[in-house]
Structures are given as C-alpha cells and as structure tokens.
C-alpha cells in the first residue's frame, strides 16, 4: 500500500511541477511570461498561460548562496547597490541567461503589477527594453483610504480587460470567462485553506515553525488558482490542525516565546536568522505572509479590490491593523522587524509601524538591518545581539507574569 504523502512533500512536488510546466511550455514553443508576484494570477491561470516569477527566483538564488555574485554582476552593469536585490539578480540573469542556483526560461512577454511597489515598474521597463519584448502592466494606485474606492476599481477593471485582450493577441490563447469564474472559485478555496493553515499557529505550541511559511509561499503566490494547490493547502491545514489538536509541534525544542517577524525573509541568511531564534526557544507565529497571499473576494469588483489590499499597497492604518490582528490572534510575546535595504516601500514607514505596533500590542520589539537577497548588508553580530536582547526582555516578562500568577 502506498503511504500517504505529507503535505510538505506534496507542496514541494507541486512547486517543482509548476516550474517544470513553464519549461515544458517554453520547449513546446508556447509564449511564456515573466510575471510580478502580485499580478492577478487568475488571468494567466484561466487562460492557460505559463508564467514564471523573477521575485521567487531572486529569493531562491539568495537562499542558495548566489545572491551576492548575481548582485555584483548587476552592479558591474551599472545598477546601484541600493536597488532591490531581486531586481539586481534578475538583471544579471537576463544578461547572463545562466545561473548555477536556479534558472527560469527566458520570457516572450512581461506582466507587471505595481501594487507591491513602484520599483517593479522600473524593473520591468528595463527588462522590456533589454529583451525587446512586450510589457503589460496593471497599475494599482496606492490606497489613500482604508477601503478601495470605486474609481480605483473601475480603473483596475479596465486595465484587467485590456490586459486580457493583449495577452490573447500575444499568445494566441483565448480567455474563457466561464473558466475564469472556476479559477476564481479554486483560488478562493486555496486562500481559505491557506488561511486555515496560518490560523493553526494560534495554538500553543504552534504546530510548526513559522519559518516553514517561507518555504510554502511560492506555491501560495503562483499556484493558488489550481485544484492541485487547493488540495495541497487543504492537506497542509488538516495536518497542522491535527497536530494542534494533539498539542504537538514540528518546531524543534520547547516553544518558550512566540514572535511576529516583519518583512521579507533574509534569504541569504535564512539559516542564521532562524537558528538565532530557534536556539532560544523562539518560534515565529505571525508574519504578514499569512494574510498576504489570501485574496478573498466574491465577485469581479472585489477581486480588483483584493489586489489593492496586498501588503504595502494600503494606507498605513490598514497595514498596521493587519499586523496587530495577526499578532494578537497568534499570541506573540515580541516582534522582530527587518529593515530591508532592498525595499524602500516596506521601509518608509517601518519605524512608525514598529512604534504603533508596540503601543497596540504591548509586546517588545527589535529591528535589524538586512536584505532579502543580498548578504552584504546583513550583520550576524548585529542580528544576534538584538535577538538576544529581545529574548532577555521576553524572559523577564514571562518570569514577572508567572510570579504574578
């Protein structure tokens, strides 16, 4: 009898399959695209168009130790070392067309969406020029209010339709709107399962190490419109809930403290950043990646709005609320804030976010300097010292609380 695969294995296999599907399409002579991580995946999934995500590649190359080499190559091309390291890795790859850590097929068109940042727009402009291929962009204006207004929804919707028309021309594939609605449904199923998996972290102990989220993110980001992904996330949520019900966890060691980790992971220093926490019995039980990849909507207009609610596209109050709610629901004792040199959009309000977060949750926080994929602006010594200080404060508070009780 075949043993039942764990959700982790299913997800890894699915991730490999998603990557392979793009290569296969490319090799069949289909037109494939490079796509921004928060571009509405419903469009490409429904049209059966294969795309791949340079941001995910940037993270993978960073995690496998190639970030510095690729960034340095891009700097040799003239790109400033202040620019987003995902984009630097991608510029290097677009020029070299090879990378020892991970490769993706070269694109025939580009799909850009600037909801997560404007640098995406400049990045893809340069790619379009360099590779001489069409660039389609859905512009999602930053929200100035808590709720996405009608004007924005109308504008996004018009671009959505425009984009579909252009993609039909480029790829020769037709949009089937009935299938589109199915993809919307499947995406909802995935998102709900994903949220259920994330919500299991509210158990004490949390059934898993929060760093595992970083590994599953890629599928959540790119594959959520497929039944396979929905099933995988359902399996994942079931597993976590089962563990939680039994009071068990896959986190290594005793879960002494629980924290929120704010910001993109330091892929190039993932092991170090994890170890410094895990060795002190600190588990990550909250991060914006939970809510980030759950796009909940009931209809087309809500779908448009959902893409305006992605992290860092919102007004500050909504951004703050996302973190505070998550932290409270997942019972954190502290928070670590990553001042990410690559990401100006994420960093511009980070000091204020940290202050307000501390005020509203009452938990201690620390901030460290780092980068998503460039190891040269991360200092082990600085990180270690700050995490240690946070652990001491959390220890002290725990003692005081226990003494009181």
């Amino acid at each position, binding site marked *: 009898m075949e043993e039942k695969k764990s959700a982790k294995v299913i997800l890894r296999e699915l991730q490999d399959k998603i990557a392979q599907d793009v290569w296969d399409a490319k090799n069949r002579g289909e037109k494939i695209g490079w796509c921004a991580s928060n571009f509405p995946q419903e469009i490409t999934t429904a049209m059966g168009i294969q795309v791949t995500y340079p941001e995910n590649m940037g993270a993978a190359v960073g995690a496998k130790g190639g970030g*510095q080499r690729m960034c*340095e*190559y891009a*700097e*040799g*091309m*003239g790109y*400033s*070392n202040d620019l987003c390291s995902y984009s630097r890795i991608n510029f290097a790859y677009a020029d070299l067309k090879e990378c020892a850590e991970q490769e993706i097929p070269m694109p025939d068109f580009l799909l850009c969406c600037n909801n997560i940042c404007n640098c995406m727009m400049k990045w893809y402009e340069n790619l379009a020029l360099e590779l001489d291929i069409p660039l389609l962009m859905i512009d999602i204006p930053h929200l100035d209010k808590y709720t996405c207004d009608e004007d924005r929804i109308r504008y996004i919707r018009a671009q959505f339709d425009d984009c579909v028309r252009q993609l039909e021309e480029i790829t020769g594939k037709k949009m089937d709107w009935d299938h589109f609605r199915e993809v919307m449904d499947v995406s909802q199923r995935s998102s709900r399962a994903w949220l259920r998996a994330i919500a299991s972290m509210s158990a004490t102990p949390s059934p898993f190490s929060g760093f595992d989220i970083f590994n599953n993110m890629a599928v959540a980001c790119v594959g959520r419109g497929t039944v396979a992904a929905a099933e995988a996330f359902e399996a994942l949520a079931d597993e976590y809930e089962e563990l939680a019900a039994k009071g068990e966890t896959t986190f290594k060691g005793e879960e002494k403290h629980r924290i929120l980790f704010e910001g993109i992971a330091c892929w190039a220093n993932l092991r170090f950043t994890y170890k410094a926490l895990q060795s002190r019995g600190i588990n990550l039980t909250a991060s914006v990646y939970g809510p980030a990849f759950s796009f909940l909507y009931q209809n087309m207009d809500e779908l448009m709005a959902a893409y305006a609610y992605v992290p860092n596209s919102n007004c500050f109050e909504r951004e703050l609320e996302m973190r505070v709610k998550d932290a409270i629901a997942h019972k954190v004792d502290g928070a670590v804030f990553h001042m990410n040199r690559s990401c100006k959009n994420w960093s511009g309000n980070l000091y204020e976010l940290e202050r307000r977060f501390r005020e509203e949750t009452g938990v201690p926080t620390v901030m460290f300097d780092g980068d998503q994929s460039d*190891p*040269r*602006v*991360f*200092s*082990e*010594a*600085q990180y270690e010292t700050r995490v240690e200080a946070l652990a001491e404060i959390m220890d002290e508070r725990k003692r005081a609380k226990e003494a009181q009780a």
Partner: protein
Amino acid sequence: MGNAMGTDIYTLGADIGSAASKCVILKNGAEMAASTVESAGAGTGGPARAFEGVLAKAGLRREDIAMITATGYGRNSFAEADLVISELSAHAIGAAAFFPGVRTVIDIGGQDAKVLRLTEAGVLDNFVMNDKCAAGTGRFLEVMARILELDVTQLGDMDGKAEQSAGISSTCTVFAESEVISQLAKGTPIPEIVRGIHESAAVRTASLVRRMNLVLPAAVTGGVAQNRGMIRALGQELGCELMISPDSQLCGAYGAALHAYRKAGQ
C-alpha cells in the same frame, strides 16, 4: 650643482592628496629628475616640504622650472602652481607614460577609487568613480588593518602567507568590521582574514571596472598598487593581468609634470 644649463626644460608636477603630497620634476618631459613623497596632504606643511624637497633633490631653483602643474584634492590651494588639472587627467597622462598602450587604469586612492578609460593614443576618454560606499577604497583597507592591529603596508605580505580565504562579505565598513572581529574570535588565522578582506575589496572595485567594460591592457595605480595581495585578488576577480609600477604612487605627480611639459612647449 648650479643653474640648469643649456636647452633642457624642467617641469614640475605636484599631486596634493588628502593624505600625502607628491612632487616629480621631469627633464625634457621624459626623464624623472627627482621625486618626493610626504605623508601629509592638503592643509598641512606636507605640500611645501614635498615641493622644496624635490627642488633640493634635483638641485634646482623655482625659477629653473619652466612650468608647474598641480593636481589632487588640494590642487587649488597650491600657490606655486601655474596650471591645475584634475587628478583623473593627471593619472591618465601618468599611466600612459608608465604603461605605454594601457587602456584601463584603476586608481585606488585613500578616499576614492576610480577607473579611467584611455584612448589608443593615451588620452582620457571616460571614467567612473566610486559612489558613497567606502568598500574598495584605501580607507576600507585601513580600517580593516587597524582592527587586525596591522599597518596597512603589512597587508600584502600577510596575504601571501594565507592558504585559504576567510569569506568577508559585508560591503558596509561597519558590518565588515564586525565580521572581521567575529573571525578573530573564531580563531581564524590573520592571513586568511586579510585575504578575505582583499577579496571583498577587490569585488567592489571590479564591479566599478565592469561598469566601463574592461579593455586590456589594464594597470593599477595609487598607493594600494603596492599591496600585492590586493592586486592578486583584483586580477583574479577580473580574470586578467594587471600592470603595476614601483613608482605607481607617483603616477599623478608624474602626469602633472608631463602635462606641464606639454603646456610649456606650446
């Protein structure tokens, strides 16, 4: 000793840097009659000492010098100068004389690093300078040497003793400092740390070079050119031979003196 005789033309180049002052006297634009290096730069007594010293060494007086060109950070405050040129032009002229046919000159000074592109005729055609980042400049090596309790001049020999390299990846001087300290704490041999430092600085400098596209042959000038460890690391990073000269520190002053000679002839 005495007055300069006959039709010989003497010109003087003064390179007044931020940390050192260098003077060269050229005879007929070809022969280096004398040179001085004072390790005190603009705003100190260094420029005057270098100037008086070079005249004394050559046995000449101020009025024997047909033309004086100043260059370097303190060029505009050097009162003896007849002419002033930027250190980029001076280095280009000097390097073309030191290394005939050279197309790329990498000058690593105390405060900045620059890469010069020369035409086949040896004329400055384009250049790039380092940005806000100190990594890849002499300053970076100085700070690192200090943590290792070494003099910056010892780095080259130390590197030669290394069997492997301790990876130093930070570009930020402050972060690199903490990396070096943690390597020391781990007991990594100092030569390996030094090699790691050189490789880190070399990568930074190499990316500056690549911004211009590397055209060979290439040479390194400036004080750092005396550091064999750094030259090896840079050569390896760029995958090419790099020419150096024992007089590389005088390249700017030499270029200025040659510039003065060309102007004197006009």
